[in-house]
């Protein structure tokens, strides 16, 4: 029972991070129909920016906000400069471009910061919380992770459901031409979509790095796990991405806890294969048939 509780809590924390990452992929997919394989590398860059600030004695939360702002700017610039020219062209062009971007960001970070592992601080303890004389499988930083991700989700829900800006962004993503005829500045909305996604990715990066070691490759597993979570929930559905992330986090945590850590990547790929075979549009894809 104790082990089940511990693995579940651990899975929720892991799932929250996957969810944030999947959400970032989903935001970009919805606005530009591109799977952004550079997402993890972008988050890695913003995390290094935060680390540089923290090492220069900037307070943790200031660095956290700076990482988000850097993500926002990086996402916007990448959309404008690199992605815009291939939008609406063959899908493979954009995919190859984001893979190339992944490598370039990797290389640049390695050159600038070196490839050695560096410790990354956490704003609260990363030791398991003690209850009586035993400890439970969650840390204060784990709780913080869940709370931060929940706040990000809630913010996005409010933005997309209840604000005019969110309505413009959704309209631009769904039907650019009609949106332009209605006065929406579609190009700006797509830039904003990438910027927001990268900002969410930056949050995920900070949460993954906290209390751990970082090197330029530390986010790489999330290229795969974030993608699996997003596909599991349906790339089109923000809510689906979140649930996909939680399901993946819990599954991997149970596999790690009860069978063995080495099996986790295999199970993740198994989940991806089953979803692609059985329900390629994801568990929560809207029933709406998209007009082409």
């Amino acid at each position: 029972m104790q082990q089940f509780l511990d693995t579940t809590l651990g899975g929720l924390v892991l799932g929250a991070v996957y969810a944030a990452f999947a959400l970032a992929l989903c935001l970009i997919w919805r606005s530009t129909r591109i799977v952004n394989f550079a997402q993890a590398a972008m988050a890695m860059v913003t995390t290094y920016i935060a680390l540089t600030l923290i090492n220069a004695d900037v307070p943790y939360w200031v660095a956290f906000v700076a990482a988000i702002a850097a993500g926002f700017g990086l996402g916007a610039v990448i959309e404008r400069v690199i992605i815009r020219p291939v939008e609406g062209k063959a899908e493979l062009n954009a995919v190859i471009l984001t893979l190339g971007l992944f490598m370039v960001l990797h290389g640049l970070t390695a050159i600038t910061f070196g490839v050695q592992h560096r410790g990354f601080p956490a704003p609260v303890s990363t030791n398991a919380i003690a209850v009586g004389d035993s400890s439970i499988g969650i840390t204060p930083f784990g709780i913080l992770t869940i709370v931060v991700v929940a706040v990000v989700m809630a913010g996005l829900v409010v933005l997309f459901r209840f604000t005019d800006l969110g309505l413009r962004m959704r309209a631009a993503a769904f039907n650019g031409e009609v949106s332009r005829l209605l006065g929406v500045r579609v190009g700006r909305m797509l830039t904003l979509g990438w910027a927001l996604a990268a900002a969410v990715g930056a949050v995920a990066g900070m949460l993954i790095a906290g209390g751990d070691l970082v090197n330029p490759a530390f986010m790489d597993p999330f290229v795969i796990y974030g993608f699996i979570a997003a596909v599991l929930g349906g790339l089109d559905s923000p809510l689906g991405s979140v649930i996909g992330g939680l399901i993946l986090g819990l599954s991997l945590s149970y596999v790690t806890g009860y069978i063995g850590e080495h099996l986790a990547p295999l199970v993740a790929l198994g989940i991806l294969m089953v979803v692609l075979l059985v329900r390629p549009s994801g568990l929560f894809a809207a029933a709406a048939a998209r007009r082409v």
Partner: protein
Amino acid sequence: MFAVEDLSAAYGPVKALNGVTFTASRGQVTAVLGANGAGKTTLLRTVSGLVRSTRGSVQLDGKDITRTATEKLTSYGLAHVPEGRGVIAELTVVENLRLGGLHRSTGSEPMPIERIFELFPRLGERRDATAHQLSGGERQMLVIGRALMARPSVLLLDEPSLGLAPRVVAQIFDLLRGLVQTEELTVVLVEQNARSALSIADHGVVLNLGKVVASAPAAELAADEQLRHAYLGF
């Protein structure tokens, strides 16, 4: 007044629009007729800046709006309902309408959504439905209602009757006729369905191969048997 002067456009070497000139007056329906491929859609898309004009100009109430960015036209009071209805299928009825009101004609008062529901009670009943759940007729009502949310002075409609049952077409055309009077609208109605369009239009312009071949009061066009046989198919 809405005036198109010598407007021309091409798709590569294909001249789809060749020196089109006509005017549409306030409070009137001007029908633009012609067979499939005559250039009607291209005309509206060129006016809206979705297709680049190679020559000519477009004036709205004396203002030159030629080559104005598409996104800015609603603020000048121009609304364009594209061919194939153009509802945003993933948004609800209310969201589609809200979207239509976000970028209004400059200086105009917001249009209350309830006013659209008075015009189209059926939309009010389905206000929280997602647009992809609507019937063809309901979608057409939605896009017209959405265009009205921007308080336009000129409304461009591309084949609103396409794929609708005759009864629904009659209902929508009746509504249009009423709107022209109450809202002081200038309506440019592009139609292949010439008979129905002429029945509510004040004026008609006939296109063939990208050129204007006739421009006359609607009753006159409807009475011209030779023209009807040659270009209008009835």
